[in-house]
């Protein structure tokens, strides 16, 4: 009986990892409750909001309550997929408690992001594909668009390593991208818009937007609204970065 308090750290760890890596709130609650019931809890109640987890588990009329605070979130869909499979195997008794604990702790310390270069390369190719979809045909413009894609990923990582707040780093990235686009030599005026836009797609808050829609549909109004606000503020920040440079460089703008 003495080990229950430490054993219930397992669903707490799983929930914290899910929340940190950007899972939806109902997924976090469901995973934690399932794991707790599989461990033998008689009752499990979880309350998850974006900034933290509160949970209480009942065993033999004893109540264990835990609170975890989550300060920052990021995008790590791979970790969500892996925790999903760990919890599924754990609930169907395919793996033991110790195995689940070891693999969860390994996930907690694993590096979340791939190498800077590969990310930048992927961002560059993604931007190239997008600029082709936006009907950009000039090879020079396509090359500039790819460079912009590289830069977008690099700058985001750079500002993140300086521990600049998220919204400010988005502003700085979109500011720098717009300045660089204006400085490209021999770029025809008609292509400026699309060269810039393809790289800005990288900054768009697609993940919070989709997650907030799914949460709102599920009835998690609190966290759904919070994420929606995050997405809207990010959009406004991107627009502000572009706007600032446009007003400074208004002589360079094509009419």
């Amino acid at each position, binding site marked *: 009986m003495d080990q229950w308090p430490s054993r219930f750290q397992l669903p707490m760890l799983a929930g914290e990892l899910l929340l940190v890596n950007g*899972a*939806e709130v109902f*997924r976090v609650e469901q995973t934690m409750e399932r794991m707790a019931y599989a461990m033998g809890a008689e009752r499990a109640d979880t309350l998850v909001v974006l900034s933290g987890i509160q949970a209480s588990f009942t065993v033999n009329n004893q109540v264990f309550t835990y609170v975890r605070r989550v300060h920052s979130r990021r*995008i*790590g*869909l*791979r*970790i*969500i*997929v892996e925790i*999903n*499979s760990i919890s*599924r195997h754990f609930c169907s008794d395919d793996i033991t408690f110790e195995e689940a604990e070891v693999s969860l702790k390994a996930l907690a310390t694993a590096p*979340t*992001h*791939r190498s800077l270069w*590969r*990310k930048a390369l*992927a*961002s560059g*190719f*993604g931007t190239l*594909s*997008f600029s*082709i*979809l*936006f009907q950009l045909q000039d090879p020079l413009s396509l090359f500039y668009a790819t460079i912009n894609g590289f830069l977008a*990923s690099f700058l985001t990582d750079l500002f993140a390593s300086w521990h600049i707040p998220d919204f400010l780093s988005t502003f700085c990235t979109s500011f720098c991208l717009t300045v660089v686009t204006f400085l490209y030599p021999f770029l025809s005026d008609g292509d400026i*818009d699309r060269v*810039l*836009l393809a790289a*800005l*797609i*990288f900054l*768009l808050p*697609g*993940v919070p*937007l*989709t*997650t907030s*829609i*799914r949460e*709102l*549909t599920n009835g998690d109004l609190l966290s759904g609204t919070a994420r929606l606000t995050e997405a809207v503020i990010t*959009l406004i920040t991107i*627009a502000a970065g*572009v*706007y600032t440079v*446009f*007003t400074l460089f*208004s002589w360079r*703008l094509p009419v």
Partner: protein
Amino acid sequence: MIYDFLFSFTAVLCYAYLFDVPLGPSITAAFTGSLAWVIAQIWLANSVFGTFLAAFIIAAIAYLLAPRLHVPVTSIIIPGIIVLVPGMAAYKALRDMIDGNYIPSIMGIISVSAITFSIAGGLSVAELIMLRVNRMIQRWQQSRKKKKLK
């Protein structure tokens, strides 16, 4: 059209890599994303309805395939939805605002939010329908197993 399909495929694949999605769901996402892009291009005249349909198809395929691939639905939807985001229209609205053309800019913002809400609508309608469809499929498979046992 083939170029559209191909390059939206690579675009979604690259973004799936950036979001750190495993290979299996990211290829599924790339297929659904390029399908959605082609559908949105066909319905370009009525972009709100086209986007709704495209988002619906992305989410429907994601809900059908995610339980079979043993991955969360989000890992397919999030990269797939990237191609539908109305970046061009939003950018044009911003440009209009800078040039001082406030009325076209506000019209643009309204159409951008309409498209965004149609993405949201497509996702939620697909979720409501597909959860029931998945349950029906499960029930059907279980009844077939029972018949075999008999």
